[in-house]
């Protein structure tokens, strides 16, 4: 009969143990019972801060976290273990269950340490460890934001986690204050010089740093939290986050009489065994060699050891690499090896560039031949290559390695590393393992490497190295649009722009291969349209378009189409409403108010479309481009014309924006909104470009999205006049159109942009690339060249002739399309799918 392993805690390390055991225990000698205090399957705590980008817990869930279909694993979520009886070898859970074990593994992790500050238990005070913590912080932050002005928050602790928390708070729209007791930020990882630069860079990002001080008391005052610091400063706050270190969760072990360390942590030997041979402890709750490791990589190593031991192996802890690299609000910080030069005779080579904002230090042995460690602040591109060189002979003079030669450390490449050098420290994957996966295993991209070696699946900082290794092994990294074009969309855009090519045939003949497909054809059609090549159905262009663009309407599940006339800013007269109503009634169309402040008419057949549009165009409507990767709507609130809070005319601006950018073809659809004041009734921050009125002008936000991965837009410029606003939007949109990938919304484009929002601002506001005049001119062309697409079809008999259901029976309606009634309107009768033809 199978023996039973009980795992207490389903965090990153506990999950890894179960995975490792299931991977190796081919014979099925063990069954695993997991008890988890948290109510959701194991998730990526290292990436916790990114939860703020999506608020989607599933985005963080670890691979295979639910052990679906594995009957050897029983996962009990939301049921914590409350007691261990070592004599009886059972655990008792909060729900009262008693479970026997043969072997017990404790993976209870750690808990945030809350310093004894008076008032730390007030509502509005939080810790930062779990998804639930972040949800609670968000609740408080949202309540804060209903007040006027920007909310403020204090983070107690300026270490790695404290800065992550500050980033999350800033992304939630609060102004963070970071209070650190040590004289500098991240005292464990960086030295004084690096700390000084880090403070400067972080403060440039709207985070106030109070170093060398601490909070003594937090008081509640009329719904606000007032924090008093030892240096006399008082902060007026909406919320507080404690992030002042962690404490191993060893209470359960303590109560069961297991040995715990003087400063906490369940004491284990190098095989991760506790003082009871039937009990292991791993991850952040374990104390190994007198140390508690607060990083995931040593925890993973422990999980692998225990899996090995349970199956009769004798693995021991190999020692841990405490290197860290993070990118906080666009600021790189990396620290590796003996960063503080504690080794006897160690030498430091420092390169501090205050102008560029980079600090680089290498620690080398006293003969300057061996790399011991280092600190990089401001630019950590070389971390990936330098870290694996720790303890090895330097390939050159340390000074030359630090010189910022073209951004890469004087030519240190992965090529210089020996096979045993660790590339992914989170998952302990060496250069040799990765090369083998590429050369022997046939992994030819990062996704496959991740799946096959686990490298790159945790913190992600080694992914650039994986790419380099692919290149070193002779695998070309594909940015190809599809099998017909080796170029990316952005490259094709440049080719078309520079060469002036006007047809797909010409482009694929000169720069591609084959005849094209449903990926490259619409993408090229969009590029041609962005650069102004006449009607989208002119000549060959018609054959490139997806059905929606080809029939200038949106296909529906039964093969009919929907009709969406443009209603700029959502403003419409009763007369026009009546026209829409009349057309809908005459053609029997289902009508619905859309989420984009306009009206959608559903159920038109291909041959009805021209007749419907003739009536709409005659009444002054034009295409709403609901079918195109193009500007959709500019939503608006009522604004200062009617609303008692409005400070500017939001409807007027929305109408102007919609008319300016209507018809603009882009890599993906574009949405916008204008709100008349900070209450934001038009939801502008969920849009690709959103405008919010202030007393003195307009704030422009970009990169928002409300779809699958919601993202709040980032503030690009504030309090500008309308002329400046239009100029910046012109540039922003054209820059996006030039450089984005196919079907990449502005949100993901901005997220992927090197240098992020700051870089975008450099380009479209400061004109760092000298492109702005060109971008504006291009937009001016678009505005001048705009013509309504539906009017264009109605005026051209040849284009009109294509709107027939049947080539041999024009005018005959498609007999497969039938309707039934629901809530007083016509809806499609669902079509069956044909029986599959057996072959």
């Amino acid at each position, binding site marked *: 009969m199978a023996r039973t392993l009980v795992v207490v805690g389903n965090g990153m390390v506990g999950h890894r143990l179960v995975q490792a055991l299931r991977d190796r225990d081919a014979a099925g000698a063990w069954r695993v019972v997991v008890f988890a205090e948290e109510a959701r399957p194991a998730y990526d705590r290292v990436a916790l801060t990114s939860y703020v980008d999506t608020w989607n817990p599933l985005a963080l869930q670890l691979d295979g976290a639910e052990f679906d279909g594995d009957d050897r694993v029983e996962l009990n979520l939301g049921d914590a273990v409350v007691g261990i009886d070592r004599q009886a070898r059972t655990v008792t859970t909060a729900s009262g269950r008693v479970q026997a074990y043969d072997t017990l593994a404790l993976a209870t992790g750690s808990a945030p340490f809350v310093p004894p500050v008076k008032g730390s238990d007030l509502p509005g005070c939080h810790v930062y460890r779990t998804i639930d913590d972040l949800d609670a912080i968000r609740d408080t932050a949202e309540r804060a934001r209903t007040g006027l002005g920007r909310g403020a928050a204090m983070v107690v602790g300026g270490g790695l986690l404290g800065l992550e928390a500050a980033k999350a708070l800033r992304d939630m729209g609060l102004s963070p204050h970071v209070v650190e007791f040590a004289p500098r930020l991240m005292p464990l990882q960086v030295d004084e010089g690096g700390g000084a630069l880090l403070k400067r860079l972080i403060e440039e990002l709207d985070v106030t740093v109070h170093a060398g001080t601490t909070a003594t008391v937090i008081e509640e005052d009329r719904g606000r939290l007032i924090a008093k610091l030892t240096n006399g400063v008082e902060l007026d706050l909406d919320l507080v986050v404690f992030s002042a270190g962690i404490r191993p969760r060893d209470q359960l072990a303590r109560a069961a009489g297991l040995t715990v360390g003087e400063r906490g942590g369940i004491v284990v030997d190098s095989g991760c065994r506790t003082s009871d041979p039937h009990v292991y402890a791993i991850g952040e709750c374990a104390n190994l060699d007198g140390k508690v490791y607060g990083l995931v990589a040593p925890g993973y190593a422990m999980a692998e050891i225990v899996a090995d031991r349970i199956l009769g192996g004798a693995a021991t802890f190999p020692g841990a690499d405490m290197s860290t690299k993070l990118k906080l609000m666009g600021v790189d910080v990396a620290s590796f090896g003996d960063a503080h030069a504690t080794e006897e005779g160690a030498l430091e080579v420092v390169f501090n560039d205050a102008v560029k904002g980079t600090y680089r230090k290498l620690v080398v042995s006293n003969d300057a031949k061996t790399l011991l460690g280092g600190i990089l602040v401001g630019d950590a591109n070389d971390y990936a290559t330098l870290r694996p060189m720790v303890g090895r002979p330097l390939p050159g003079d340390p000074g030359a390695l630090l010189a910022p030669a073209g951004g890469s450390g004087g030519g240190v490449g992965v090529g210089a590393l020996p096979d045993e050098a660790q590339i992914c420290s989170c998952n302990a994957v060496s250069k040799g393992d990765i090369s083998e996966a590429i050369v022997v295993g046939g992994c030819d991209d990062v996704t496959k490497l991740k799946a096959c070696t686990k490298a790159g699946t945790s913190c992600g900082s080694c992914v650039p190295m994986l790419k380099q290794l692919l290149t070193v092994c002779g695998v070309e990294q594909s940015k190809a649009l599809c*099998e*017909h074009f080796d170029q990316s969309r952005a490259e094709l855009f440049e080719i078309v722009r520079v060469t002036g090519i006007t047809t797909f*045939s010409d482009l694929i003949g000169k720069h591609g291969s*084959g*005849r*094209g*497909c*449903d990926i*490259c*054809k*619409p993408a090229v059609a969009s590029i041609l349209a962005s650069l102004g090549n006449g009607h989208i159905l002119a000549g*060959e262009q*018609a*054959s*490139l*378009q*997806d*059905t929606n663009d*080809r*029939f200038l309407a949106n*296909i529906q*599940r*039964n*093969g009919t189409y929907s009709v969406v006339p443009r209603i700029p800013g959502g403003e419409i007269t009763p007369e026009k409403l009546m026209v829409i109503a009349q057309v809908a009634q005459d053609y029997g169309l289902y009508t619905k108010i859309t989420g984009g402040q306009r009206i959608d008419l559903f159920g038109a057949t291909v041959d009805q479309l021209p007749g419907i549009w003739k009536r709409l165009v005659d009444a002054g409507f034009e295409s709403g481009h609901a079918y195109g990767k193009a500007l959709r709507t500019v939503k608006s609130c009522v604004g200062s014309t009617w609303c008692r809070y409005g400070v500017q005319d939001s409807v007027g601006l929305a109408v102007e924006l919609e008319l300016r950018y209507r018809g603009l073809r882009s890599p993906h659809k574009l949405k916008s909104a204008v709100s008349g004041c900070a209450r934001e009734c038009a939801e502008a921050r969920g849009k690709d470009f959103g405008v919010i009125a202030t007393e003195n002008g307009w704030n422009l936000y970009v990169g928002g999205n409300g779809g699958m991965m919601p993202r709040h837009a980032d503030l690009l410029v504030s309090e500008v006049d309308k002329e400046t606003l239009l100029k910046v939007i012109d540039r922003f949109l054209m820059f996006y159109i030039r450089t984005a990938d196919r079907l990449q919304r502005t949100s993901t484009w901005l997220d992927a942009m090197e240098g992020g929002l700051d870089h975008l601002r450099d380009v479209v506001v400061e004109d760092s690339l000298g492109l702005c005049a060109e971008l504006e001119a291009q937009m001016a062309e678009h505005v001048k060249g705009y013509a309504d697409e539906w009017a264009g079809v109605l005026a051209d008999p040849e284009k009109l002739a*294509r709107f*027939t*259901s*049947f*080539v*041999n*029976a024009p005018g*005959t309606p*498609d*007999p*497969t399309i039938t309707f039934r009634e629901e809530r007083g309107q016509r809806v499609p009768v*669902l*079509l*069956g*799918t*044909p029986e*599959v*033809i057996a*072959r």
Partner: protein
Amino acid sequence: MTALAETVWVELCPLESIAREQGVAALLPDGTQVAVFRTHDDAVYALGNQDPFSGAWVLSRGILGDIAGVPVVASPMHKQHFDLRTGVCVDDETVSVPTYPVRVVDATILLGQT
């Protein structure tokens, strides 16, 4: 050996009524819908018009192209590709759509019926 029924060639439409690299739908007297495609080299193919994945009668409105050299149409609904020569779905070979014999005579498209 069974005797083959004689193929009757029915006139569908002039070749010119299909633009290059596009498709049209044709309605047969028995109500069958056929998607007829004209590729870049003026070759003509005919498949059943129903998309077997969504059930909608729309294949004629898909984008034409080639996948690894195979001439295909992509369903306008969810983009599965069908081999224009055989009707087999390239993305899932257990699925296919019917094919019909076609000819072009004197710039007129004829559909073969048995």
